[in-house]
């Protein structure tokens, strides 16, 4: 690092900020309190040295609550503040021992889920770090200590209730469902058919509940094909499910075959149902060994299967690790582009987007209905269906629409947030962890870059979602499926992330948003356009962080204010003039008919 020996006075981060303060630094500790949410309690505080990878060691006081780690610099010339929800912590390690030599060699090293590490040095005398280590471990990993996640202690109140944002019946009604081809079934009301599916499912009208039960036997974890989205005009559909249990022997299931044909028959003009298996074909074949597999041509005459070559959760996890290696703490400089290429992160993004484009195109063109699955149908499948829906249906590009999309395709359909993120769990090396949802949000960001006017939300919205994916402040992303959330009474006992966002919507709005109905968005899934999301992945680096707020957005907001000001002044002038001349007044809106129309 070129400048590790010097210090920066000013750098501003989302949760970490350094304010230039003219106040007397000596009294600060006593006069300023640690921010606290209702329900948050202070556990301990301690003097430490924060080893900032950008600014060097900074002496500070750390406060640990049951929700966050908060550090305030004790140095007069810098007012660094670290504010890290404990949920973000993935791993806490002790560095150095009581006898270690060297400055700042004894302390704690904290690995975070959001692309950063935190390092604290403590005094070697008297096992000073033990208390901090234990407090942090207890509250960052409450599951191992029979403690509740903070979301269950949070007593925040918002004037809107995010839990009511998604109502499956309403959402299906918005899509025009049920209709005479599709029905809503309550067969899974008590999660008996499939414990990782939502209570409410949309299935072909002609399939009886008995049929569904028989199909469930043949689908991994009983995740049967159900409807995700229906095209309002051509009535082709996007279906999602898990892999068929074909196995080594190539088992067949007449009910499953018949069921897929029923799906196809909801569109009379279509001769083949398209099945997109998200996996690389090699992986699909390999899955036969564990009882899984894919729909063979001989068994499913009226279906056409293609593989989308998207890799599994382990590949994605390793890829993101490599991204972290090149961006934190130092950004690989001399060979930035080739280093970025070697992480393959953007290549994976490209494959996911390409897959979703194919799904969207099939449906939008009315060529065929589409069935999407991977192995269990809760990772890649969720990515593909939700992205395709985002491309097809402009409703999902609004703030509430996007919340509904996430709530529906991810949360209710059992993307295993609990396992993939490891909320409150100390097992940082758990093979179940994977940044699948992050990858989806990245894809959404790539789309919003290519279509700057198509989304109601801005980058801050996406970053807020990711921050609270880990924070455990809200109940939204906790647990693996709807049945578990219901057992834990999550909606009753926790606050929804959407409550916070929807009560503060302006902050998350894209000023360039132009509402358009029925426009299908096809992003260009090419390496020429895909970019690393610098404002997310490299946001901790004060030298890389881009302008906040976005100068272009800011310019737009200023012009809006200027316009309103002019209109006001014009109206005042006209009023004054007309009063003077006693002429009939002309309002500016009459003179400029467009003024009021398109904003």
């Amino acid at each position: 690092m070129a400048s590790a020996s010097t210090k920066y006075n000013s750098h501003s981060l989302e949760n970490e900020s350094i304010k230039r303060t003219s106040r007397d630094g000596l009294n600060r500790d006593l006069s300023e309190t640690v921010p606290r949410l209702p329900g948050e309690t202070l556990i301990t505080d301690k003097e430490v040295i924060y080893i900032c990878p950008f600014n060097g060691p900074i002496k500070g006081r750390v406060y640990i609550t049951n929700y966050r780690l908060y550090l305030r610099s004790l140095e007069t010339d810098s007012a660094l503040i670290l504010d890290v929800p404990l949920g973000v912590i993935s791993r806490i390690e002790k560095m150095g021992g009581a006898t270690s030599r060297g400055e700042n060699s004894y302390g704690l090293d904290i690995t975070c889920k959001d692309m950063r590490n935190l390092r604290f040095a403590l005094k070697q005398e008297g096992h000073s770090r033990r208390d901090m280590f234990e407090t942090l471990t207890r509250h960052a990993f409450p599951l191992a200590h029979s403690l509740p996640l903070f979301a269950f202690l949070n007593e925040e109140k918002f004037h809107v209730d995010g839990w009511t944002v998604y109502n499956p019946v309403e959402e299906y009604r918005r899509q025009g469902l049920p209709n005479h081809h599709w029905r809503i079934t309550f067969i899974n009301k008590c999660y008996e058919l499939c414990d990782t599916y939502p209570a409410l499912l949309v299935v072909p009208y002609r399939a009886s509940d008995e049929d569904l039960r028989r199909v469930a036997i043949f689908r991994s974890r009983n995740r049967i094909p159900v409807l995700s989205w229906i095209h309002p005009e051509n009535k082709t559909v996007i279906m999602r499910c898990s892999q068929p249990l074909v196995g080594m022997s190539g088992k067949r299931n007449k009910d499953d075959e018949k069921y897929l044909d029923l799906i196809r028959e909801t569109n009379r003009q279509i001769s083949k149902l398209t099945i997109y298996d998200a996996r690389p074909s090699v992986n699909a074949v390999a899955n036969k060994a564990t009882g899984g597999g894919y729909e063979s041509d001989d068994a499913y005459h009226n279906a056409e299967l293609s593989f989308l070559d998207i890799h599994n959760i382990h590949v994605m996890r390793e890829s993101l690790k490599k991204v972290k290696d090149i961006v934190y703490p130092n950004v690989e400089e001399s060979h930035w582009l080739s280093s970025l290429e070697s992480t393959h992160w953007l290549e994976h993004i490209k494959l996911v987007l390409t897959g979703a484009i194919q799904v969207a195109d099939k449906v939008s063109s009315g060529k065929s209905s589409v069935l999407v699955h991977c192995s269990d149908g809760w990772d890649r499948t969720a990515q593909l269906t939700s992205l395709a829906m985002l491309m097809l249906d402009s409703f999902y590009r609004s703030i509430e629409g996007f919340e509904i999309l996430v709530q529906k395709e991810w949360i209710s359909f059992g993307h295993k947030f609990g396992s993939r993120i490891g909320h409150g769990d100390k097992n940082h090396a758990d093979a179940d962890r994977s940044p699948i949802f992050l990858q989806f949000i990245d894809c959404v960001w790539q789309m919003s870059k290519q279509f700057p006017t198509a989304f109601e939300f801005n980058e801050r919205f996406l970053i807020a979602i990711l921050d609270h994916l880990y924070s455990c402040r809200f109940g939204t992303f906790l647990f693996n499926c709807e049945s578990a959330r219901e057992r834990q009474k999550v909606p009753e006992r926790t606050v929804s992330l959407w409550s916070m966002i929807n009560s503060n919507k302006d902050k998350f709005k894209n000023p360039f948003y132009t509402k358009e109905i029925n426009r299908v968005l096809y992003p260009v899934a090419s390496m020429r356009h895909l970019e690393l999301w610098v404002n997310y992945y490299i946001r901790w680096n004060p030298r890389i962080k881009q302008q906040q707020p976005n100068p272009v957005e800011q310019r737009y907001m200023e012009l809006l204010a200027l316009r309103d000001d002019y209109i006001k002044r014009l109206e005042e002038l006209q009023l004054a003039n007309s009063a003077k001349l006693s002429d009939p007044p002309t309002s500016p809106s009459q003179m400029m008919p467009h003024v009021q129309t398109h904003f």
Partner: protein
Amino acid sequence: MFSLKPPRPSFRSYLLPPAQTDDNINSQPKIKKLEPVLLPGEIVVNEVNFVRKCIATDTSQYDLWGKLICSNFKISFITDDPMPLQKFHYRNLLLGEHDVPLTCVEQIVTVNDHKRKQKVLGPNQKLKFNPTELIIYCKDFRIVRFRFDESGPESAKKVCLAIAHYSQPTDLQLLFAFEYVGKKYHNSANKINGVSSEGGGRGGIGAGSGTTSQKTPLFETYSDWDREIKRTGASGWRVCSINEGYMISTCLPEYFVVPSSLADQDLKSFSHSFVGRRMPLWCWNHSNGSALVRMALIKDVLQQRRIDQRICNAITKSHPQRNDVYKLDLEKTLPNIQEIQAAFVKLKQLCVNEPFEETEEKWLSSLENTRWLEYVRAFLKHSAEVVYMLESKHLSVVLQEEEGRDLSCLVASLVQVMLDAYFRTITGFQSLIQKEWVMAGYQFLDRCNHLKKSEKESPLFLLFLDATWQLLEQYPAAFEFSETYLTVLYDSTRISLFGTFLFNSPHQRVKQSTEFAISKNIQLGDEKGLKFPSVWDWSLQFTAKDRTLFHNPFYVGKSMPCVQNGSVKSFKRTKKSYSSTLRGMPSSLKNGVIGDQELPPRRNSPILKHKPDPLQHTDSHNSDMEQYFREWFSKPADLHGVILPCLSGAHIKLWKLCYFRWVPEAQIHLGGSITAFHKLSLLVDEVDTLSRMLRQQRSSPLEACYAELDQSRMYFRAQGPHSTSGTPEFLSSSFPFSPVGNLCRRSILGTPLSKFLSGAKIWISTETLANED
């Protein structure tokens, strides 16, 4: 003024619904009536009928039928067929939508499918087969393809040979601009001043009221330089006229600025010691008194120290604080012109020649391997260091280079774009190009390679536009012009009609055009050489409406107040963190840091000292610079003051509009930053209209002049046909350009053409051809 070409019948304004025409391939008889639109002095050299222009690589379904013409100015394809799949076209008034100016031709390849032969055509060459196909590789990244399946084989061959011949002239006076301007003089023999369009260029972009049609200073006269001295507040500097009539140097302008303390006599005697007799040229003055100066090397070894000392002393004397001079040897620190050319060839190869899909997997590393972005960054970084010297250290800076007319042009102009907001306006930017490129003797003729002598070609000017684009991308509100303007400016270097980018020096224009005038019996009178049209007269190329696309709606002009929370403020960039300007620091500094990995060096105290240790002399300079950059980035930037580039790998980007605009696969339909540009333009237009109404209300409420309401500096109008609906259908990431028909790679039998054209081979083959002459 001469008359402009009338709109072609097939042109459809975006305002009108597309004309539904049933004309198609069947209406071939019509083709015979197709006539080219010619400029004064333009003559048709050869033509062939029943030619097919290929639109798509994989299908002939969209191909257009028409006539292919080679004139002494352009390759023209004339068709009655409407352009398929194209909803909008930005029109150049000098060129039809299928036309390619001869000076824009990079390489001509003829192919015979049946004989499986292909040949790169040089001038005066024989072609032993009848071509079935002609592929024209253009300097502006287009690839245009024609097929001759239905045309007369002999005429097809003749046209190909004519194109090869006329696009590779052996003499400067064969360039069309001479013929054109000669004709102008003949036509207007009774007028006093020849072509009135010279005199250079009103900044003629703005049609609207807000923008003044300021004249771009050309720096051909004493007074332009004098005004620039006064504008920058330079004291201790004077305009020097010793080179009047190019008596001292043929590659310096007639007037330039020197330290006041140097007498003409001294300068004359020193001049012999400089390469090309290129004495120090003043570029610009900081308000703190420090000056930017460019200078060639002193070739006279014996005199070197003495003259160098005299010059430096004189520059020091011109500084109000008598501060020292900082010298920067550009050749030691920056890539040379050959390396830049090599990078450009690779970049172009990657962006347009290589098959799209095949390059996807290794796109990022291939892009890195071109080194283009690395060079863009290097120039930005060095320019930022010069800014530091001038702005923070208050030192005058001398840019040194062998002849001082290549890298110096780029660095001198970038420094001024960063330091002086005037150069971020359209008129200012144009005057900068006049001052630091055209007048300073940048060898446009050789570097653009108008005469196809490849060894001197180098895209330094494009590199400058690219670096400017990076700044525009990082500070969108700091520039009056748009990226469309920069792109069109690049294209204009490829039209041999303007005098601006045609010559190696002002003297060359005078000398060559005087010769030409004598040979053509043109009376020059008092004029020094022929007056060619200036590129700054944008009305020659674009309608007033189209020119509004040059305006950047994000720009916050000085006069533009902004309202925030009800109170009017001047616009400031918000707090922005320090970027990695220091990442490219000299290695001495990097090595100065103990252990350069995750942990910062351990200190005796965690509380670090801010001031550098005065004993550490070696590093203090760099850490001061670091400190300067850090502090600058920690504060909100004043968009009317200094702007500095962010230089990390993630900040230096590929200029997609310029390099991808013809690539169909890379086009984002109804997307790209243009959609936000569009949305903002509507708002700007509305605010402008309101502000005009407000003014009128105040001044004369009774007679509000509605005529003024029709003027706008925005291309997209609030009241226009698009205001109510969303994004107009014709917008795409390529806008205002269209890839349709402009990039038709050949999927060739046998050897892929891309291989055949790869890398340095282009240059070898062209040389080989040249030797065959």
